[in-house]
Every structure is written in C-alpha cells, then in structure tokens.
C-alpha cells in the first residue's frame, strides 16, 4: 500500500517516491494544502475500494498513520 500511496501523493507534490517515508507529514513535510489532502483521500478510496469517515481523517497527519487507518477499513 505504501508504494501506491507514494505514487498517488506524487500527483500533488513535486517529490520523488523514494523521498516519501511513512513518517512524512502530509502538510508540514510534503507541502500539501488541505484540499490536496482531501483529493488524495478520494483517490485512495477509489484505488482501494474503501470509504473513509470524514470525522476520522482530520486525525491523520502522517503517511504511516493514514496507511494504518486504511488497513483497518480493508480488514
């Protein structure tokens, strides 16, 4: 999932996939604005066929936290 996430993130930021780690914070480190982040979540919903809870997404700050959350939805 991390590799796919990296690929999707690169649609919004000028970074190489290898620069994106699980510890990277979406806004502070990757430079996304809040609407970039929403669109990314929309892409992830489509890619992994999940439906995120909009009350939960505000808690997601890093790539790793997001992956853990998406995995709970897939389970």
């Amino acid at each position, binding site marked *: 999932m991390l590799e796919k996430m990296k690929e999707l993130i690169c649609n919004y930021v000028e970074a190489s996939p290898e620069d994106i780690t699980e510890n990277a914070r979406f806004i502070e480190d990757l430079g996304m*604005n809040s609407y970039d982040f929403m669109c990314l979540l929309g892409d992830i919903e489509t890619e992994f066929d999940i439906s995120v809870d909009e009350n939960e997404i505000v808690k997601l700050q890093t790539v790793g936290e997001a992956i853990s959350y998406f995995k709970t939805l897939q389970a």
Partner: protein
Amino acid sequence: MNKHKIKTLQDLVTAAAKEYGDNIFLKEKHGKDVIEKSFNTFCEDVQRMTAFVSSKRSTDKPIHAALIGASSYAWLVSYFGTVCGGNAAVPLDAQLGCSDICELLNRSDSEIFFCDSRYESMIPEIQQSCPNVRTFVCFSTDFETILNENAPAAFEPVAPQALAAISYTSGTTGKSKGVMLLNSNLIDNAMCQDNESTPDDVILSVLPIHHIYCFTCDILCCLRYGAELCLNDSMLHIPQNLKLFRPTIMLIVPMIAETMYKQILAAANAKPDIPISAIANTVFGGRLRTIYSGGAYLRPELQKAYIDMGFQMAQGYGMTECSPRISTADPFDTACNGDVGVIVNGCQVKTVDGEIMVKSPSVMAGYYKDAEATTEAITPDGWLHTGDLGYVDDKNRIFITGRKKNLIILSNGENVSPEELENKFAGTDYIAEILVYTEDSVICAEIFPDNNICINWTDEELAAKFHETVDAVNKTVTSAKTIRRLRIREVEFDKTTSKKIRRSQAVQGHQV
C-alpha cells in the same frame, strides 16, 4: 423567466416549476446511485415542508429554523420550505463543533434544528443547552416521513421584505455576526446580473452549502436559468464527481483552482505527448466551459493558466452582507488585470478614505440582535462599509488592495496594507503562505515555505533565500513599508472554513 416578477424565494421556486417543469433540477448521489429531482418535484416538496415548518409556529411570529449538513436535496427542501412560508432559515457551517452550534442556535432564536446524520449524536446536548429548540429533524430518518405526512398546498404570499435568512459570517477576526438577509436581498442579487446560462447548463456545486456565495450563485441561479444542479457529496470526491456529472459551469475558491491545476500538471508530466488543454478538459469532465472564482484572492497567473488551457475563468467579489455579489467578472474578459470584476447592476460603489462602500438592494437589513454592529456597518443613508480597501477604475472594475481592519498604522502615521505586501510575494513558488503583521513596531513577514520545492533545503539555505526575496520586495516599496523581520514556520497557518488565513493567530515561526 421574467425576472422583474420575481420578488421572493417563493416566487422563484414557483416560476422555476412553471417554466422548467419536469426538467431535472437536481442530481445527487445516494451510495452508488444518482437520484434526480425535477423542478416540479422540488416545488411540491418545498410546499410539503412549508406546511410542516409552519405547523410548528406557536405564535403569529415567523419561526427560525437552523440547518446543518453537507449539500443535499433534503437540506435545500428544508431551507426553501422554511423561507417560502415566511419563516427564516439559519444555515450553519457544517464544520462547527457542538458548543458553537449550541451558541448560534441560542443567538439566532432557532426553534427547529434540521441536520444530517453526522449531527444526530449532538441532539441530547443541544436539547440540554438550547431550550428554545423544540423540533429536531434528522434528514436520514425524518425527511421522507415529513414529505409523506404533509400535503403540498399553494404557498401563502410572503412579503419581499420578510426575513429569509440569518447567515453567520465565519470572519477572519472576532465573533461571528448574524447577517439578516431579506427575500428581496437574495432575489436582487440572483437577478442583478444576466449571464449566458441556459437549461442546457450543468453546475457542479462544490462549495459549502451554508455559504451565501454557493446559495446565491449556484442554487438560486440554477432555479433562475433552469440549469441542472449536481451536488458534490464530499470534498474528497470532486475529481470523481467531475467525471460523473460532467459540468459546464463551476464556482470554486482559489484553493480548489490551485489543487486542480496541480493535478493537471501531474497528468501532463506523465503524458507529455498530449496537449495540456486536452488533459485539463478530461480532468474537468469534458464539458466545462466557465469557472467562477470567489471567496479569496485569485492569483492572476493562475487565472491566466486556466484561460490558456481553454476555459473562461472569472473572478468575482462580494460579502455575506451583500447577498453576496458586489462585482462579477465578464467571463469573456481574458486580460487578467488583477481586478475582481465589474460592479453588478443596481449596485453603487464609492470609496471613502480608500475603503469601498456599497449601496444596493442586496445589502442586508442588519446584524441580528446587534444594533451596535449594524450602526457601525451601515451609514444612516444606507452605505455599507465593506472593510475592504481598493478603488474603481473608469471601466467600473473593482481592484482590492487590502482589508481596512488589517491596516498597519505606523508610528509616522503612514498606513500599510499587509495584503498589498503579501501580494507582492504571489507567484514565488517556494512560498506556500505568507502573513504580514507588525511586531514590536516593525513590519514582520511570517512565511510557511512550500515544502514541494524546499524539502531538501537546509535551514541556512531557506533563510538566505527568503531574505533575498524579502530584500527584492523591499526595493519596490517606500522605506516605511519595508519588511524588517522575517519568521519561518513549520506548520501551515490556521484558516477559516472558507480557507482564509486567520490573521489573529499566535506567532509560531522562528525568526531568521
């Protein structure tokens, strides 16, 4: 539609049903299905809801009904059902927490609370904190029942001067104020300007539905022109919904324009053999013709980029107190002069001490239960203080230079608009956000770097680059306006729900 005969929202709903009948008024997603409602069905459902809301009146006085939730057919029927019976709607921001909701329900004297399922769990606390709220309607469980239990009946006439809505401003400073908008205000603003929309147009509504920009320019204009209104179910799904609904017109805020542009650029980089205009056309669903931007300053460079990709892109200007439009751009004007459009018909604009003042039938009746704030905002002869600094050119175009309340008054008495300085950094790609303010009597610029660009820069490189940029800007201003302190922050600025940077927030950046 004969716009001169439309005086109230009730007139508009009735005229739209008469003129556009069984044409599709609205589409929205229900799970994986899309439901459609015609103009006739909408009018009939509004009549049913009007009967319900009016039945909750305990006196002859109009009842106030608050609404909160994502954009939905139920929200719209509830809003119009309230207003078409001579009652007042209180549209609330869907991002508010429970304590703020309770405060606004009490301040607005609301007696009915319409909400979607996300707010259902708040009802016990609201019941405890808001004794005046006696009726709770949850869209997911109660809406269909109400429609089934109330027969549609012809509307009782409503006066154009009847209060239609109390809209709470989000505001970048201070406590929100309840803007009282009359039926006549909303109708004047929806009718003041003719545009090229037709019943063939499809509008994808992506802005928050409680916001007056969305309400007047998406909803009321669809009813006026018979255009199809497609509701975006979530900010997460705009790209998918563009492909699903294939709009011809969209109203957006600059942040959405920025992100969509990034997506287009990313796709263009991945497919260099395809023209960027073709990629942009696909991203927006294949039929998009016109984009209107409002709510915040749109960089002329970004506007130009969209025009170069083949879209009409126009910027407008307004405020809740003005229902909201004061000026609107001609979408065929491709000059990107940095103006915010031409003054709308019926609106008078003048500047006093540099501040833009407005007089028009769209101007609010005042702030709800706040006579002091109303007196401060509107002069005895009806001119509204916009609080914006700017000027009008000989073509009636408005140019904004800053906010009066943000003015920095220097010790020598000179006034400096922080926005004027901030805008000088527009287009600097390594700066994501900037706020200019005074600190210890000197002008300070606090910058949030664009980490797409700066991710590998050392702190020293970052400081050197920003000092160099500030020095370049300082060369373009008088010595009194010189930025003398620089701070760099690690987190983006706190923003209002309409994505404007809150000017009053703690300094977080470290000085460099």
